């Protein structure tokens, strides 16, 4: 093998798509020949074909925008709470030592299960989605903010002190620029969790987003549309994560 790494990578990527295509064809053949029941698995061509119908009859574009919009609103709320919280904990050593591990625990806790609680308090509406989304996003953002704000080289701290910087100047000129790349990483992680949790809650409670669409197509037992909408959720979340990652790389390079 004397392939250059780049062409080797391209070849591998091509093979990956080949495998996906082969799996699709295999599934199609198995359903068409009756090896797999049509009542359990929809042939890939029909699932893909149903997407057009989903766009027209189930207003897929609107459904998609609702989920995406909720995700971003929740992320904005999580940033508004998480970043100041992280900066505070990074600044006050006692608070950090007392509560940083609580944030870690919150990050690993099954927070999504709290959704019935907010359904009761806020009612069955988009408010619950936003609050639940924000709730899962706060911990990763705050933790990453702490990490970033504590990564300032001591030399710079000393320079800031020797220049008699005020607290505000220190924050604006030193802490925030130093913490930014790490904060971006936190926001990226938060966005992933928020999207997953919003889709999950929407699937269970039916609030009009992508999760409800999957649940609805299952409930009306429309196999092609169900597989089509599942495929759509998978594909959009892959696109979403790829774009966020690219966005983060672009932001941190500048």
């Amino acid at each position, binding site marked *: 093998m004397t392939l250059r790494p780049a062409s080797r990578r391209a070849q591998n990527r091509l093979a990956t798509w080949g495998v996906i295509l082969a799996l699709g064809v295999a599934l199609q053949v198995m359903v068409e020949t009756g090896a797999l029941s049509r009542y359990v698995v929809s042939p890939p061509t029909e699932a893909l074909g149903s997407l057009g119908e989903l766009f027209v009859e189930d207003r897929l574009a609107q459904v998609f925008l609702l989920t995406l919009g909720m995700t971003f609103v929740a992320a904005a709320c999580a940033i508004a709470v998480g970043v100041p919280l992280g900066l505070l904990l990074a600044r006050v050593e006692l608070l950090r030592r007392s509560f940083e591990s609580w944030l870690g625990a919150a990050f690993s*806790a099954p*927070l999504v*299960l709290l959704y*019935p609680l907010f359904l009761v308090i806020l009612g069955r509406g988009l408010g619950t989605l936003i609050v639940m989304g924000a709730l899962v996003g706060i911990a990763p953002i705050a933790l990453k903010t702490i990490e970033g704000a504590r990564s300032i080289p001591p030399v710079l701290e000393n320079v800031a002190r020797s220049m008699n910087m005020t607290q505000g100047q220190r924050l604006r000129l030193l802490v925030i620029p130093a913490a930014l790349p790490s904060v971006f990483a936190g926001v990226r992680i938060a966005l992933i969790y928020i999207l997953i949790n919003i889709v999950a809650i929407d*699937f269970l409670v039916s609030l009009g987003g992508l999760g409800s669409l999957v649940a609805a197509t299952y409930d009306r037992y429309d196999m092609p549309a169900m*597989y089509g909408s599942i495929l759509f959720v998978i594909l959009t979340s892959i696109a979403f994560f790829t774009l966020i990652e690219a966005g983060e790389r672009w932001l941190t390079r500048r």
Partner: protein
Amino acid sequence: MADQAMSAPVPADPKALVRPPRPRAPGDPRVLAARVAAVVILAAIYETLSRSGLFYQGIIPSLVDIAAELVELLTSTEFYGHLAVTVFEVVCGVLLGGLVGLTLGINLAASRRAGDVLHPIFLWIAPTPKIVFLPIIMLLFGLDIEAKVAKASVSAFFPVFVASFAGARQVRPVLLNVMASLNASRAQTVRHVYLPAMTPVVIGAVRLALGVAIVGTLLAEIKMANAGLGFLIIQSYNFFRIPEMYAVLAITFTLALAANAGLDRLAERLRR
């Protein structure tokens, strides 16, 4: 490597996770005082809200009511039946999904070509919302315990696969070359090189898998069960027994955090 120990309900890829804070700042009384103060203040705010009359009656139950409900739950035999169902589903899911994830992860990592070609597919699906697979699982497995085990397995599979693949790819090539020159079989290489080198990675991955399996199982129980903690939560919601709902949630969170902390401690010990 340290990435693998990180905790997350649904991990995207190993490097995307947040490093957990060093556990336990031991023995500083001021830390303890700050934590106690925080708990007391939060409880006071909560209780004030509960009694303020700002919310509809019963929406934010008093801590006293929740505590009473907690005692009632913990002394009823019925509760332990539900708990056992959920624990069974989660443990089966973690074992099943974890074993498949570990085996597939190591094997794909060991064969360079197949790994490079197939790994991206799993990596793409790993951070997507696994809940959308639930309808397919319900079609395949029905609405009973098998379906919940299947859901937990699917959830647990991805973090273990991703971590195992990444961990196995980081095993030093020298060791693999030695095994190759000894004409060792794949099974021998896995047993004597991969697994010993990957123990902390695997424990970290199991911790992640446990977290997502708990969420996966409970959400599946909420959607379709007639037993389990998720069923208790949604039933108390449907019948507006709000203090009971808070109590079940409190128990669920305590157990999840305890399991997580236990595995964390185990991983810490093994790393030393």
